[in-house]
């Protein structure tokens, strides 16, 4: 069976700055791949390319057997890559339920036909509510998304991503700014999501999360792959330790 995601020699430059430097990696079916690296290592730039936010300067990206390197955002979204954002991006004026309903593929794919979507009302709401409930937000379903506390906003972003029916989910530092208790809950949530997905990519500085979720880890620095392997191996890799010194040292224990 082919890899869920194959990134092959991908480079992204901004003017003179090389954010990602001929990086290659794969994500296999059923796998959760962790990506770590110090600030500015190019982790977000990498998943921005995978999800179609940036176009690679060089290299190719494939989802299963399909090349997606030059596809536009919505084409990639429709093919089954969903993501969350390092700085949460919800539709803040909508309610929790509406955020999830908006991502329903029936209407994102045929927007003008969505005008005639009256018949599906109850069914659409039930479907979205199932996801809202899945993420533990059922009692807040009618709240305005912009008013949610941080942890709930994170969970809503994941629910919205799942509502697109993705095969691959990209999570960009979902644990940032969470305390221990919240992190534990997040880990459990991510494990639940995995049942619905072919694979998951998790960018994270929090080593607890990496250890508890990732099957395999890629460590990046200066846009390049520094180390790759099982979490314990990568976390004890001398270069990785050095890269983290003085930045997020404390988290590496």
């Amino acid at each position, binding site marked *: 069976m082919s890899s869920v995601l194959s990134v092959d020699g991908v480079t992204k430059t901004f003017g003179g700055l090389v954010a990602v430097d001929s990086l290659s990696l794969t994500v296999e079916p059923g796998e959760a791949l962790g990506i770590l690296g110090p600030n500015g290592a190019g982790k977000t730039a990498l998943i921005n390319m995978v999800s179609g936010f940036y176009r690679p300067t060089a290299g190719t990206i494939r989802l299963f057997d399909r090349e997606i390197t030059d596809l536009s955002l*919505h084409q990639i*979204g429709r093919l089954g890559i969903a993501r969350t954002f390092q700085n949460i991006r919800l*539709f803040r004026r909508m309610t929790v339920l*509406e955020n999830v309903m*908006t991502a329903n593929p029936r209407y994102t794919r045929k927007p003008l036909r969505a*005008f005639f979507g*009256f018949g599906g009302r109850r069914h659409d709401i039930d479907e979205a509510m199932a996801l809202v409930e899945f993420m533990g937000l059922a009692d807040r379903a009618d709240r305005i998304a912009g008013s949610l506390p941080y942890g709930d906003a994170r969970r809503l972003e994941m629910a919205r991503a799942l509502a697109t029916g993705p095969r691959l989910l990209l999570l960009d530092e979902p644990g940032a700014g969470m305390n221990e208790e919240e992190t534990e809950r997040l880990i459990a949530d991510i494990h639940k999501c995995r049942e619905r997905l072919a694979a998951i990519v998790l960018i994270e500085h929090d080593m607890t999360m990496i250890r508890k979720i990732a099957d395999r880890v890629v460590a990046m620095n200066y846009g390049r792959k520094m180390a790759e392997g099982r979490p314990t191996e990568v976390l004890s890799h001398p270069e990785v330790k050095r890269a983290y010194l003085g930045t997020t040292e404390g988290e590496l224990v």
Partner: protein
Amino acid sequence: MSLDLALFTGINILLAWSVYLILLTGTLSFANGAFMALGAYVSGVLTAKFGIGYMPAMAMAAAASAVIGVLTGYPALRTRGIYLILVTLAITFFVQTAIENTKFVGGVQGMGGMMGTSFEIVYGSVIVVGALIWLLSRSPLQRVLDAVREDEHVAGAIGINVVYVRLALFGIGAALAAYAGGLYAHHMFFVAPDHFTIIVSVFIVLYVIMGGVNNMWGSVVGAVILTVLPEAIRFIGEWRQGVFGLLIVILLLFRRDGILPFRSVTARSGRKADA
């Protein structure tokens, strides 16, 4: 209120909705005065010069405007923010100049010979269009549009073809503005290029901004107030324009989001919140 004023009010409500529909995707269009002019002239020429029936002429004018809206919108909608505003203003300016230089429709002199319209036609149109926009506001499409307006990149990432959605609504808004322009032309029996200056485009936008951009009723309130108010304060004579402008400024200072700022929620869970 005189019949004349009532008809202008109805036509202006339709024009306000034409801007509102385009604004649903986050595009502030100053081109709707141009689409109004297109509708006025196309329907006027078809009825006055070719003897085509009223409703077929109106439909053809709306369709022609939609096509031109999509053709001009395609390059225009690649720009955003202030550039897009300038491009839409340029469309208005271009159409006015083009009409002025077209002998066939009378150039700067204008053209006449239209057949008039009626209260029933104007307000029947307001009701039908209003009903359609109300249905839209309750449909899944409303959320797609809200998503595009609020964060076009996230909207794209969840699978919405943002350019297509923006273009479609621009075309629909252009068609509606043209339809309203057709009503205007037939009500006036006569149109000239200086009926469709940039100020007209600006005013239509003002109806929506003043009334409130987040729901269809804001456009109605804005259009009614800004159409009726100048007549109501006619008694103050020469200072009328100044007072009118001042009222608008005061209103926007105190109600930045318009008179009716709310957004209607499109779906409810039907559960009790316990948090």
